[in-house]
């Protein structure tokens, strides 16, 4: 039930912000500070989410095979690999390290 609440709230919220952009008069969101904050917010969120989903299990910090997978993804990004290759590298390396007992 809780999962459905989260899904519906996210769907409604995400749709409304998309629609708002098409409806709101341009000047309302054109203030430089608002725009810069909107550009920086995803940076902070994505960084925190990446770190948490790599280095934690529940509420415990852990260092496991996912860290190797993320390093592989970072390397693929540096080599300008396509999106799916980046994700594939992370998955393959994580699975490989686990298979080796990591």
């Amino acid at each position: 039930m809780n999962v459905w609440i989260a899904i519906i709230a996210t769907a409604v919220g995400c749709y409304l912000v998309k629609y708002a952009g098409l409806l709101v008069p341009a000047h309302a969101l054109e203030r430089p500070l608002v725009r810069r904050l909107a550009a920086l917010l995803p940076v902070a969120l994505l960084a925190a989410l990446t770190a948490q989903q790599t280095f934690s299990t529940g509420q415990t910090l852990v260092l496991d095979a996912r860290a190797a997978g993320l390093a592989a993804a970072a390397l693929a990004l540096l080599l300008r690999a396509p999106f799916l290759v980046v994700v594939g590298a992370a998955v393959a390396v994580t699975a490989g390290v686990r298979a080796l007992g990591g």
Partner: protein
Amino acid sequence: MAEQTAPPQPAAGPAPAAGPRTGKPDSAVVRDALGVGIAVGLSGFAFGVTSAGAGLTLLQTCVLSLLVFTGASQFALVGAIAAGGNPFAAAAGAFFLGIRNAFYGLRLSQLLALPRWLRPLAAHWVIDETTAVALAQPTRRQVRIGFTVTGLTLYVLWNLTTLLGALGAEAIGDTDAWGLDAAGPAVFLALLAPMLRTATERAAAGLAVVLGLGLLPVLPAGVPVLVAALAAPAVLWLKGRSLGGDGGTPAAGPATERTKGQDR
């Protein structure tokens, strides 16, 4: 998927080469749009697998792709649910990631100039990729073609591959053994990497990592990410102070913002 920042590059690339002012055939717009739509649409597979691995049902996973349709928000929500977060904290994190779509819509509304009745439908497709492709087009007709073809291809493929990914994950059972729990963070990293252009962005990312990991053991699940989001205003505030206010930027603001939209 918007979030899938890397793919729009192909679209932004060919556009200038073809020379916006010398005229660009509609077929080239369709080709660019299909390229982005297909490349990013296929990554719905990663979402389907991640979502099923996080314990969501097939129906929940598919509803997310059908109704939320903005990749980073979907991955964030699923990750928060897997971590046992409160549903509202989980939804709030996903919502914050979706806010940037409002800014895309703001720019698209002038370029697309859609009739009022069509806007509620078009709104659902306002994401990183459709914006990137649409903004790269020289004429209104081609903006509309780019937006529609990218939106349609991506929506259809993203939902199909979500379904296949979720079915596949259920079939193989223990997704962790296959390393599939690394797909989510890898997606986030791929979305994040192109955004880390300046010291301000790197500082915000660094501070967010410290807050997100540091608070994880002490705050309820889902809340540390929301606190980490405060790294954005904090870094802007500190930067404003060290520059003695953020004057001077208004003139540069709109221009940089525009190019930013294209290369994302």
